[in-house]
């Protein structure tokens, strides 16, 4: 598949923030290294399969997750509760929904699983070594978050 995954992540994420959150963000260059370790964070993860298999994950430090939730729901939050988890899971759903459309325009059809949300003081999220990783950092007033797209590579 000849695609610029970095640009697809940026376009899809930007679109969700512009249209759903009305929150300005800027994107950075894709990270050269895989990021595994997260502290005081919330991660929304969503698998997909079809013409290509993979997983999309959004990793947010707690205060960024709070900021996104407050903006989306219009209420104040100060702990990682159901609202925050639902919001970050829904973010993964919306961003991957955008990427799915771009894939489809390129002739690649994927179906989405259901989102899973991890949260905690300190945790690692590992992938499998037969997948390519593209991780893009985004910046907003509350801090930085990562959107990571893993695709199964042909063995």
């Amino acid at each position, binding site marked *: 598949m000849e695609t610029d995954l970095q640009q697809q992540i940026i376009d899809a994420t930007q679109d969700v923030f512009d249209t759903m959150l009305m929150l300005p963000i800027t994107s950075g260059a894709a990270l050269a290294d895989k990021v595994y370790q997260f502290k005081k964070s919330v991660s929304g993860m969503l698998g997909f399969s079809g013409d290509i298999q993979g997983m999309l994950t959004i990793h947010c430090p707690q205060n960024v997750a709070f900021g996104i939730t407050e903006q989306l729901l219009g209420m104040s939050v100060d702990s990682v509760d159901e609202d925050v988890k639902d919001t970050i899971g829904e973010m993964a759903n919306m961003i991957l929904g955008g990427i799915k459309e771009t894939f489809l325009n390129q002739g690649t059809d994927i179906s989405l699983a259901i989102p899973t949300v*991890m949260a*905690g003081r300190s945790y690692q999220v590992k992938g499998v070594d037969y997948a390519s990783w593209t991780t893009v950092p985004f910046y907003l007033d509350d801090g930085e978050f990562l959107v990571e797209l*893993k695709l199964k590579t042909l063995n």
Partner: protein
Amino acid sequence: MDLQKNITDATTEIFETMIMVDIIAGDPITEKINNFKCSVSGVIGLAGSCKGMLAIHLPDKVAMSITGSFLGMDVTEVDDDVTDAIGELANMVAGNIKMILDEAGNNVTVSIPSCVHGEEYTMDTVSDSQRVVIPFNIDSGQFLVELQIKN
């Protein structure tokens, strides 16, 4: 769909044929379990005519003992071998469940697995889905297999 039987059959077969460890399935756990301490969780998505997720949650020592049996080596810490093995275990169990679901007339495909490890973390699914959690016992302890399916 009898999800309990699907999970039990799929998991038992993988342990008998791939890990060569005896396991005993328990009764489904009805209370919500979403908080894990010093554990490893392998997660994989299911998509297609029904969508969902499968997760296997293991205390560190159980994850290490299963990895040791699977790879035929001593494992003393939760390293990349362990997270790879538990991701692959989720993949194998999900592959078996896919076959059972497909035989019942579904058309399901699996995503790639991911593996979470940490001292303390929560894992929740954001969806109104049917959820079944089955505990399994092996010599080194107990682990959970969680399946969520949305039609």
